[in-house]
């Protein structure tokens, strides 16, 4: 089985789908001849043809609007928004149009498009290349939201997203494109080489939407995380020497509530980690869901470790980033009962 980093795995997913389904096409800024600023579409235009993977003007609203029309026609467009920070000009088309077409037309028109976008920080990208806008989409009826944490899942989830008959927001944690990142800013960068989840089948396979994975089984505390923060949570558990159960949500909407509930009922404790700001972040939804279903099993308050309620900074990135020290402290606190 070939070893792939996340970029190669996503490229393989797109390659497989272009090969299998003539209704699949890709558009976005710089995705054509050049192959994308992160190289995710590298070689796809040359292999599959100019009209299968092509450059789009710098107009995110136009890109998504056109893709909705393509979806309504019967195609399965895959759109790349170059950075999630650039997605806001397309917000009306995503929220008012893509998400609502099936409902408002009683099924006459649908928008089976996949919107891929690199997101998240830890790359010294500053405010406009680091944001985590997932909760702006998890709140919208009619959207699914997917975030992979490793090459194997990235490919299988992207294929599932493209094959899904509804619009999917597919956010790619760009900090871990080339290797898992545990959040230690001063340690050497690691690559995916040798990582078990970098073993990626060359052929078509699906990781179903709506199914979480248990990244680390444990008994002491449940950690809910996704994307880069899965690796940070694993590092934090090791750093604190705590037998945490780390759940990689993989799909935020619809979230795998059964896996979450079973884990928290078992451990009696729950820490939620995301890079996005605290207030109204997806952690708030997770916290409410856990409270509603696991209240009588909880032995400590649910704790969220997140980005601060500030814009994403540049020079102070590592003060913002919820790294393993902060997560480890939260793990210790929910075990000792010292929760503010």
């Amino acid at each position: 089985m070939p070893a792939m980093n996340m970029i190669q795995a996503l490229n393989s997913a797109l390659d497989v789908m272009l090969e299998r389904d003539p209704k699949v096409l890709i558009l976005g800024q710089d995705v054509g001849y050049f192959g994308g600023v992160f190289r995710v579409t590298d070689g796809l235009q040359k292999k599959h043809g100019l009209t299968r993977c092509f450059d789009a003007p710098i107009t995110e609203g136009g890109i998504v609007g056109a893709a909705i029309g393509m979806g309504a026609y019967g195609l399965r467009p895959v759109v790349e928004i170059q950075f999630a920070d650039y997605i806001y000009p397309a917000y009306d088309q995503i929220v008012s149009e893509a998400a609502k077409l099936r409902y408002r037309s009683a099924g006459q028109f649908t928008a089976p498009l996949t919107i891929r976008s690199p997101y998240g920080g830890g790359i010294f990208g500053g405010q406009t290349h680091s944001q985590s806008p997932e909760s702006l989409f998890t709140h919208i009826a009619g959207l699914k939201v997917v975030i992979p944490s490793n090459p194997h899942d990235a490919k299988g989830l992207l294929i599932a997203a493209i094959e899904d008959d509804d619009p999917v927001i597919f956010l790619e944690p760009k900090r871990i494109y080339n290797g898992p990142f545990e959040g230690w800013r001063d340690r050497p960068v690691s690559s995916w080489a040798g990582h078990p989840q970098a073993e990626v089948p060359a052929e078509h396979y699906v990781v179903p939407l709506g199914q979480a994975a248990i990244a680390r089984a444990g008994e002491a505390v449940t950690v809910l995380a996704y994307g880069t923060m899965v690796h940070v949570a694993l590092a934090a558990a090791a750093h604190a020497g705590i037998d945490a159960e780390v759940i990689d949500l993989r799909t935020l909407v619809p979230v795998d509530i059964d896996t979450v509930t079973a884990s928290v009922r078992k451990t009696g404790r729950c820490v939620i980690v995301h890079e996005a700001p605290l207030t109204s972040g997806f952690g708030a939804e997770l916290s409410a869901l856990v409270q509603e279903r696991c209240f009588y099993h909880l032995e400590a308050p649910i704790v969220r470790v997140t980005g601060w309620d500030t814009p994403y900074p540049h020079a102070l990135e590592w003060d913002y980033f919820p790294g393993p020290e902060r997560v480890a402290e939260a793990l210790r606190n929910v075990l000792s009962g010292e929760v503010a």
Partner: protein
Amino acid sequence: MTTPAQTNAPALSLHVPEPPRRPGEAPDFSGLVLAEAGAVARPPVHAPAETLRDLPYTLIRVLDGSGRAVGPWNPGLDAQTLTAGLKAMILTRTFDERMYRAQRQGKTSFYMKCTGEEAIACAQAGVLRREDMGFPTYRQQGLLIARGYPLVDMMHQIYSNAADPIKGRQLPIMYSSRDYGFFTISGNLGTQYPQAVGWAMASAYSGDDRIAAAWIGDGATAEGDFHQALTFASVYRAPVVLNIVNNQWAISSFAGIAGAENTTFAAKGLAYGLPSLRVDGNDFLAVHAATAWAAERARSNLGATLIEFFTYRAAQHSTSDDPARYRPGDEAALWPLGDPIQRLKAHMIREGVWSEADHQSAEHEAQEAVRAAAREAEAVGTLGQSRVSSRTLFEDVFAQPDWRLRRQRQQLGV
């Protein structure tokens, strides 16, 4: 308040456009420059865009003041096509009047008439094919009516009753009919424009022979979606007919607030390299001819055309609006380009293919058709008397409901 100018330079002043006349004043159309009927040349459809740059600044007209069809844009329609077009316009106006009254009687919450603009959708419905896809805004009911879409289904939608084809999901008049080439209407203005371009690109990508069309109002051309769509249409030569219905008014804002003091709406296509026409929207024959020209360009893989239809919103914006508060009351009656129904009628009578008696009988037929549809729709129920099952609230959010929707449906107890 900021401090006044610090230098001897002349003080700047902010310009806020105002229409020439307000309520209580006599309408003033002296600013309108209207080309004579027949005066504008009709270039071949394959003429390069750079040879067509005068077209956005004139006005393509076919019907002159005496009802004659003149000039190179005369589409030469046969009596059958003319009759069908006139009947569709009469039926559209009759339907509008009936549903306006229904709203005033409390049978529904909201209605929007297209009075004075009937020629646009009714002529275009016959040029575009039903298999093409139209991305309308909210004043193109003539497309459905001219294609014979059941009036009763429109009424079911307006009444949001149990037989509403879209299950009571949308505000009245926000129709959707895939089978009639009518895309689901959005209340967020302008969003349909890039979608139409994308649909057209998909057709071209697929080697299909269908084209798309989109409609937008003069006011909504200020939305980013309009410019995004023109960029896409130009870049990818999408087979799409992009229509601007310039009816002079965006609720209470005159077209000057959307930039009409400084240029024409058609001229906005020039910077994108799109052939752009400006057409008398109250002239059925001119609408037909211009749309046929644009559709032929699209079908010949020559790409998109922008068409501004110059017309007047004779009715209020919606049943929630009162134009007497912001424009002269008789402006519609005195509109220099007249009433599209009267103009086509005069032409057909002049041509000897129509008579006053035919007209009266067509109006009577329209009344009867609308009355029969209303009886049928009201038997199902008007707004609030009848509605779809509460279970349907949770349907069509996704192809398959997830656990949240299943649980919430149980919580509602349905």
